[in-house]
């Protein structure tokens, strides 16, 4: 493995997820998180070399909507800035990549967007090709249900399995003060919720919400002074799959499988079982089972713990769900996870996704130790 630059997560700030914040603009939601994250690291905005955001113009309701967040992140003196129309975890990937060039030592990564202000199903329909998939009105819950039906038929999974996966997450989410849903719910109660797009019931869907998040990255040499317990990125990989749902094998997460294998190899680990915990961006219970299959995870085994935060099934702020997974990994490995802390956690894996049916996937392996020196 090539010698790479050690980069650590040194700060993370997130507002608790709410269904709708009717008092604040997206920028007003983001501003305090940027300030908190910088304060936590003991630095000012001018100490930050680079900034990247993940957001969606269609969620913002205007093209080039990302410029509205620029002033909050930094636009004077003129900044090095990048924006991606993907989950902000992918923005963290690009910040890490940028820092490998060697001339940036610090970066902030922001995710924001108020999905409650527009019509999310119609917006996400526009992610699909306009002639074949978009034209028949597919929304993300319907495409997810198509995927779930293929997976459940192939793997002989039932409604009960989806209820149990969800209940496990909901029990964990009850210990996460930033989650949108913070009450444990029984499998029976979840299995009594209404169908949205069968085989998916309302109870098995990640509840949409909104928040704002800011994560701080720093390279070796700076990271140590910005955080008491820097959490080092040890391996990462991102993969995208084809757009045509009918040409993919929807029962398996091919991109996730490859990204996991590559990220683990980069971090010098053999299997996902070498991690103490994993945070997944599953937008429904079937997706979580598909991800577990792709990543070699078994919820029956004590290690790794899957979604100690409750995962996306306890709060799904679009464009931020993945970055929050990375933030949770930071919290777990830096002693900031409160009641949901996994004891003695040394290594953890974060997963993020964008697009319909787990089309794009990012896996980041983090640990308490530096990887390359």
């Amino acid at each position, binding site marked *: 493995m090539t010698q790479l630059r050690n980069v650590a997560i040194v700060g993370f700030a997130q*507002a608790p997820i709410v269904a709708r914040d*009717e*008092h*604040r603009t997206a920028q*007003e939601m983001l501003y*305090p998180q940027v*300030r*908190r994250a910088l304060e936590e690291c003991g630095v000012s905005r001018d100490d930050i070399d680079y900034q990247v955001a993940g957001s969606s113009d269609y969620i913002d*309701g*205007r093209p080039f909507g990302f410029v509205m967040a620029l002033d909050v992140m930094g636009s004077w003196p003129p900044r090095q800035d990048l924006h991606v129309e993907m989950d902000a975890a992918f923005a963290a990937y690009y910040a890490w990549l940028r820092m490998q060039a060697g001339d940036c030592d610090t970066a902030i990564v922001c995710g924001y967007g108020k999905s409650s202000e527009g019509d999310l*199903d*119609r917006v996400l*329909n526009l992610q699909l090709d*306009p*002639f*074949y*998939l978009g*034209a*028949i*009105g*597919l*929304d993300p*819950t*319907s*495409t*997810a*249900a*198509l*995927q*779930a*039906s*293929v997976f459940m*038929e192939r793997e002989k999974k039932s409604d009960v399995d989806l209820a149990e996966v969800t209940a496990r997450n909901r029990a964990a989410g009850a210990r996460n003060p930033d989650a949108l849903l913070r009450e444990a719910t029984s499998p029976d109660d979840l299995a009594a919720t*209404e*169908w*949205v*797009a*069968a*085989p*998916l019931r309302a109870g098995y869907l990640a509840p949409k919400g909104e928040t704002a998040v800011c994560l701080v990255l720093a390279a070796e040499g700076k990271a140590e002074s910005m955080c008491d317990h820097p959490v080092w990125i040890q391996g990462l990989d991102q993969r995208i799959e*084809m*757009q*045509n*749902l*009918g*040409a993919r094998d*929807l029962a398996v997460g091919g991109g996730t499988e490859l990204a996991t294998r590559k990220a683990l190899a980069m971090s010098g680990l053999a299997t996902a079982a070498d991690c103490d915990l994993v945070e997944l961006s599953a937008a429904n219970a079937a997706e979580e089972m598909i991800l577990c299959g792709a990543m070699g995870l078994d919820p029956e085994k004590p290690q790794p713990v899957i979604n100690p935060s409750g995962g996306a099934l306890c709060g799904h702020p679009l464009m931020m769900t993945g970055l929050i997974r990375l933030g949770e990994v930071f919290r777990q490995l830096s002693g900031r996870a409160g009641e949901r802390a996994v004891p003695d956690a040394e290594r953890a894996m974060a997963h993020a996704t964008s697009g319909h049916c787990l089309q794009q996937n990012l896996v980041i392996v983090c640990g308490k130790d530096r990887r390359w020196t």
Partner: protein
Amino acid sequence: MSSAPRTEPMTAEMVSEFVYKHSTGNDIGRFLAGMKDQKKIWCQRVRGLGVAVPPVGYSEADGSPAGEWVEVQPRGTVTAIARVFRPIAELHPSDLPFAYILVRLEGADTALAHIVVDDLDRLFIGSRVEAVWKPDEERIGSIRDIAHFRVIG
């Protein structure tokens, strides 16, 4: 950090409407023209996938250019189902409960996404379905020139 809100929440309503005229291109265009003019489904043979439905002009598996055009049959086997109980107005193609399906058409190696609106209790993975075409005057060169698929077995 966040201060208490100083005003009652207010909203500013904004409507963005932009009309696009997307060119359908050579490959998608031929597929749509076949549906409109002939009630036929023309697809492309591509390396790595076989006969790919719908066609895009190249292999999504390995990037090689698409090969010959192949007619596939407007009937096939259901490979995936999403049963929509509460259709979303102005997005979904039906006001009543319906199902999205992926259907492997006869002669094709990948599946087409479409809808079934009737006999939902007879619709399962593995069911046979057949395209129901819109009348001549209503076909405009759209995937929805097929009104829906009906269950035939």
